[in-house]
Structures are given as structure tokens and as C-alpha cells.
């Protein structure tokens, strides 16, 4: 009989081990996805930094009257670039200012009917819209993945072991109201 009970215990232990491994693997792969998503945001922010000088010089000729707006964009960009090697939390305010400056630039460009007819300006607008969208979508993807990761950790029965296996909830990428208003 002891043989049989040993076998039973062994099977249960193996099943538990397999389950543990699968929980660990799924959580680990979710964590890698989050890291990738975060890297994507980084890539898109960098892309925006690289794009802005070209965009500004492309429309400078058409927008002589709006030199202030253009300068604000350039300044916000240089500030964002300056902190680009810092942690996320430190970068968010500078990037939020840049976003605000760019949206103002878009708004201004909308106000000139003669500008809207120029093909270069249209292409410029499209690039700007897409740049902003890319950052927004990268952030959305990151937040979706964080939500998946956190949900996977807090649901029963994984919540009993997630901490033990070395997982902790990730933080979402949110822009606070004060930063949004900081224009």
C-alpha cells in the first residue's frame, strides 16, 4: 500500500510542479511583453524627437507669423531630449509639455486656410498626427499589457504565489491632470 500512496503523492507533486512552472512562465512572458511595450514607447518618443527638427524646418517658411509656437515646440523638444535618459516618471512631464506644444502647432496650422491647401503642410500635419497617435497607441498597448499582467497576478489562485515567485504589479503609464494642464 505504501508503494501506491507514494505513487499518488509523487503524481500530485509532479502536477503541482508543472502547474507552478506554467504559472511562472505565463507571468514571466507577460512581464517580457510589458518590457517590450515600454521599449516601444521609448522608440516612439525618440522618433518624435528626431522628427521635430525636420518638420519645423519644413513649415517654417509658411508659418512666419507663428514663430513663437514653433519656438515653443523646439524648446519643449530640447528639454525632453535633455531628460531622455532618465526614468519614465521623470520624463513624463517634459514629454507632456512637448505634446501640448505640438497640438497647439497643429491647431494653429488648422487656422490658416491657405496653409491647408499646401501639400507640404498637409504631409507635415499627417506626420505630426501620426507621431502623436503612435505614442498614444504605444502607451495604450503598454497599459493594456500592464492590466493583463496585474489581473493575472491578483486572480485566485495565482495571487497566493505570484509574490512568492517574485512578481509584483506593474504601474500604468498615466499623465496626471497637472501635467496635462501645464501648457
Amino acid at each position, binding site marked *: 500500500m505504501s508503494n501506491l500512496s507514494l505513487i499518488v503523492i509523487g503524481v500530485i507533486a509532479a502536477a503541482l510542479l508543472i502547474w507552478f512552472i506554467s504559472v511562472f512562465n505565463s507571468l514571466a512572458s507577460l512581464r517580457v511583453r510589458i518590457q517590450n511595450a515600454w521599449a516601444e514607447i521609448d522608440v516612439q518618443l525618440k522618433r518624435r524627437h528626431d522628427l521635430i527638427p525636420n518638420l519645423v524646418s519644413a513649415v517654417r517658411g509658411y508659418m512666419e507669423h507663428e514663430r513663437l509656437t514653433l519656438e515653443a515646440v523646439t524648446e519643449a523638444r530640447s528639454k525632453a531630449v535633455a531628460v531622455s535618459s532618465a526614468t519614465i516618471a521623470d520624463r513624463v512631464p517634459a514629454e507632456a509639455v512637448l505634446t501640448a506644444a505640438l497640438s497647439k502647432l497643429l491647431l494653429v496650422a488648422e487656422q490658416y486656410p491657405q496653409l491647408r491647401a499646401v501639400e507640404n503642410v498637409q504631409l507635415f500635419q*499627417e506626420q505630426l498626427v501620426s507621431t502623436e497617435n503612435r505614442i498614444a*497607441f504605444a502607451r495604450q498597448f503598454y497599459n493594456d499589457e500592464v492590466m493583463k499582467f496585474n489581473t493575472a497576478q491578483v486572480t485566485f489562485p495565482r495571487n497566493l504565489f505570484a509574490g512568492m515567485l517574485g512578481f509584483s504589479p506593474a504601474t500604468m503609464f498615466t499623465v496626471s491632470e497637472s501635467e496635462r494642464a501645464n501648457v
Partner: protein
Amino acid sequence: MSQANSAMQPGSSRPIAGPRDRESFLDAQRRNRHATWRLSAVSAVAAVIMGIPLALTITPLLYAVGLMAADIVSLFTPLPAGFWQFANAIGQYGTAALVWLLQGKSSDPQTLVVGGAVLLLPGALLSAVLWRGVNALFRRSGVGGALMALKAREPNPSDLGELRLADVVQEMAIAAGLPAPRIMLIDSPASNAAAIGTSPDDARIVVSRGLIEQLSRDELEGVLAHLVASIGNGDLRIAFRVTSVFETCGLLVALINAPFGPHARRTLWRVVRYGFSPKKDEAAGAAEADALASLLTRGGEMDFDDIDTFFNSGSSKRSVLRSIRNFLLFPIFLTNATIKISLWFFSFSMLGPSIALLWRKRVYLADACAVQLTRNPDGLAEALRKLNSSYARIPGGEWASHLFLVNPRGSDRLSGTPASTPQTQVLARAWAASATAGDTPGRSGDPSLVMKEIMTTGRAAMAGDQQAMARMLAFRQTAATAFGISEAEMPSLEDLAAAQHSDMQAMRRLRDFSRRVERNQPNRERSSSKTNPSSGFAGFHPSLKRRLKRLDRMGAHVALEATDRKIWMFIAFLAVVLGPFALLALGLLVVLIGILTMTSLTFIALWMAVIHQVFVVFAHH
């Protein structure tokens, strides 16, 4: 926007009354994902059921071939006695199972199980091997290869619309966390899009130029989010699996037909050649794969007439030799007919519909994922509405129509206005060209409106309005030039009027005319017979209304027309009245297939016995 507005006019439609159950896109995704799991189980069961009569008919054929080979070999070198004992045992087990099937005489269960295995396994094994082979053969080209060979180009970044398209694809790929698929732009006025390829890593998105021109940025985002989500969900692999089942059936039919006709042999030869072709030219290879797939799928749908021509060839001049030959080969003819009928029946009534429903669930799933990516259900809803009321057929995509965002045939519409075909577009242009200073200018933007205008002017002309008559005559001239036919060939006003009062002869003349016009079109599309792999009575595309309803639940602002209760009552009435008859017909067909299977089994068994005896007698001499 004009179509959308006309559909949203007060009176023509109203929002559904009562509380609407909202659903988050995550819930919708989960629901549809579970539904696809269930439906794949159902499809697998259907495939197995379809396999039973197939295996039953193919197995004896395999035995016959094996026996003949053994007989021929034993003419030269006698085979060991063990082999004949083994063959004898197989025959006895098989006969026992057959007797039980035909007469219900029970022998012991063990014999029956072995007998069943003897009858089913070889055929099932052959089908499985063929299926694996088809999978391995076509894996490298994936689905939608025909589109790959189209004259497509990359988007041009200095064109606003194309830059926007490229940007939106990048954005959606970022939103889905996938590598950005390559874009193939087709210069076609049709507006449709499809995702093709084998996996998320090498997926491509085919977009026609008309789509860019017709949709706003939000709508474009919705459309591309749907395609990217579909790629991310692994729909390409599912589509591939689905077609491979039908391709296997076609390959089986081609194999059986091969000894009898050039058509099947040519197909097989193309398959073999494709298997050994160098893998350099990707696009051409993919196109060939798609052409083969289309050929094989049609083979499964009784398209190979080789064996019939073979047997009928003797009917014109009756020679003794030929009738002897026909008599000898009759069992194979019967087997072929049985396989064709059972393939057709089961794929029409079971496998096709369950796979079509499965595919619809995938479409809903991709819609729900698109809402997650864009967080804007209105964009997709509005785009779907627009695309469904415009010309959506992309040449080369007929066979793979299930891969497209909206049905290229454009069969379902909400507003009831006919989809604009090339013909109506040509007519609309001709109408605009015939306008003189005094006339109302043709509203060339919407062909369906122009068609209405033409009809009203025509009616006015018949009623005696001189100005309208002059306009109609001018139009007749421009339209004849546009269609490339002489003016005399155009239908007269009297014919149009008579056809409206359902005069048979006038209608026939009009039909002749439209056929002639179709022949004259430069890029005439093939008829619809090769659109979908056998989908049975259920289409692969969910109706626009159902998609909009689901998007509406996820928060889109669509004004859905309330369902017409009268139609539903009519359908229910029909179902109650005709349902029993349909069931009876289905039952009769199943019985017929059973009888055919048994007959072909018996005939081949007899055939085998006779041939074997002939060989034995021959060997003794």
C-alpha cells in the same frame, strides 16, 4: 458620407427601442473566442463524419490495387504463404463487418472492431497522409497567394492618402504590439482590403486605392485595426487549415480520376511540379499555390468530369471492346460517384456551414479586437457601412473572398440601394457626358442616385416630355460609345418600359444586352462559381447588420433598422412548413449515400474476387 446619411434619414430607420445590453470589447473577445473553440470542435466532428463514407469507399479501392499488385508479383516470384493467409484474414474480417452493416447479423464484438478497422483505417490513413501532404506543400505560401501576384506597389510617402495609409498601418501594429505588416497597394477603384500570408511575421495587407479615397482617417484606422487584429489572432493559419481540408478532398477526387482523364492528371502533375519547384520566386509560387488550391477545391465540388467523359465516350460508337472495358471498370466509376456525392453532401450540409460559422466568429472577434486597438467603434462601423454600399470586388481575389474585410460580392446592404458595379459606373459617366446646358447635371458622385435619375427621365420621356426624350436619346448614344457597342444594339426606350411591365420578350432582349455588355468589358471578372471554398448554405461573411449590431453594443453610434417582424414570421412559417420536408430530403440523401457506399463496397469486393480468380487460373496454367 452620402450613403450613411441616406440610411440614417428619419423614417427609413429608427434605433431599436428598449434597453440595449452593452458589452465591453474584452467580454466580446472572450465570448467570440470561446465560440470559435466550440465551432472548431463541431467542424472537427463534421470532418470525421464526412471521412467515414470516404474511408469506406477508398479502402476497398486500396485493397484492390494492393491485391492486383500482389497477384502480378506472384506471377513471377511466388509470395510467402503467410501473406495470403494475412490477406485472407483481412478479407474475412472485412466481410464480417460488412455483413453486420448490411444485414444486422451480429458476430462477436472483437471481430466487428477489427473488421471496422480493416474497412476504415486504410482510407482514413490515406486521407490523413494526403492532408499532411497538402499542409506541407502549401504551407510556405499561406493564404491569398493570388493577390500576391497582382500588380501591387508600396505606398508612395509623398502622396497624402498613401502616407496616411502607411502611417495608420504602423499605428495599428504598435497598438497591437505586432511587427508592422507590409502593405500592397492595388490601383483599383474598388474599395476593399484583405490580410494575406502565413503568420504574423510575414503577413501582408492588401489595400485597394479606392479604400484610401473613400475613407476618413478614423475609418481607415478601424479597417486596418480589424486586419491587424485578425493577423494577430492567427486567422491566417485558421484560413489555411480550412482550405487545406477542402484541398485534400479535391486531391482525393483527382487521384481517383487520374487514370481516366487528362484534366485530373494535369492537376496532379501541377501539384507535383509545384512541390519540386525552386523556392526563389515567392510571388509566382504563391500565385501557383493559390491557383492549385482553387483547382483542388473545385475538384471537391464535382468539377472533374473526366471519368464521366471517359465512360460516355463510347456511347457515340458502340464497340464491344469499349463496353467490356466499361463493364470491367464499372466499380471504379461507382466509387468515384459515391465519393463525389458524399463529399458534396457532407461539405454542403455539415462541414461547410460549421466552418463558415467558425469564420464568422473570427470576423466578430477581429472586430472586437479592432475596437480595443482604436477605442473607437464608430470608425469601423462607419467604414463597414460605406464599404458595403460601394463596389468592393478586387480582381484575383474571387477565390479568397473570405479573406476580405467585406464580401467582395457585396451581397448584403442595409439601405437597399444596389451596389455600384462597373456597369452602373459606366452608365453614370455616360449620363453625365450626355448632359447639355439645359439639363440637370448628373450627380456623378453616387451611381445609384444617377440610376434613379435615369429612370425618372426615362419615364418622363415615355410620358411625352420632349426635353426628357432628347436627353434619353443623347444618353443612348453616349452609353453605346461607353460600352463599345453600336447604337443599334442598345435597348430601346420601349423595351425598358415594357420590361417594367414584365413583358417577357423585352426582358429577354435586355438580358441579351447585358450579356453582350459584360462580354465587352475589358477586365471581365469570372462568374461567382469560384468564390468561396464550398461553404454550403452559409456564407463566410457575416451580414453587415450583425456586425453593426455588435459594434453598437460596444458603443458605436449606429442607427440600426429595427428588424422587420413580418419577415421573421414569414421565415418561421417557412421553416415550420418546409422543415420536415428538408429533414426528409436530408435523411433520404444520407440513405442514398449509405446505399451507394455499400454498393460500391460490394462491387469492388466482387471485382477483386473475379480478378484474383483470373490471376490464380492464369498462374496455374
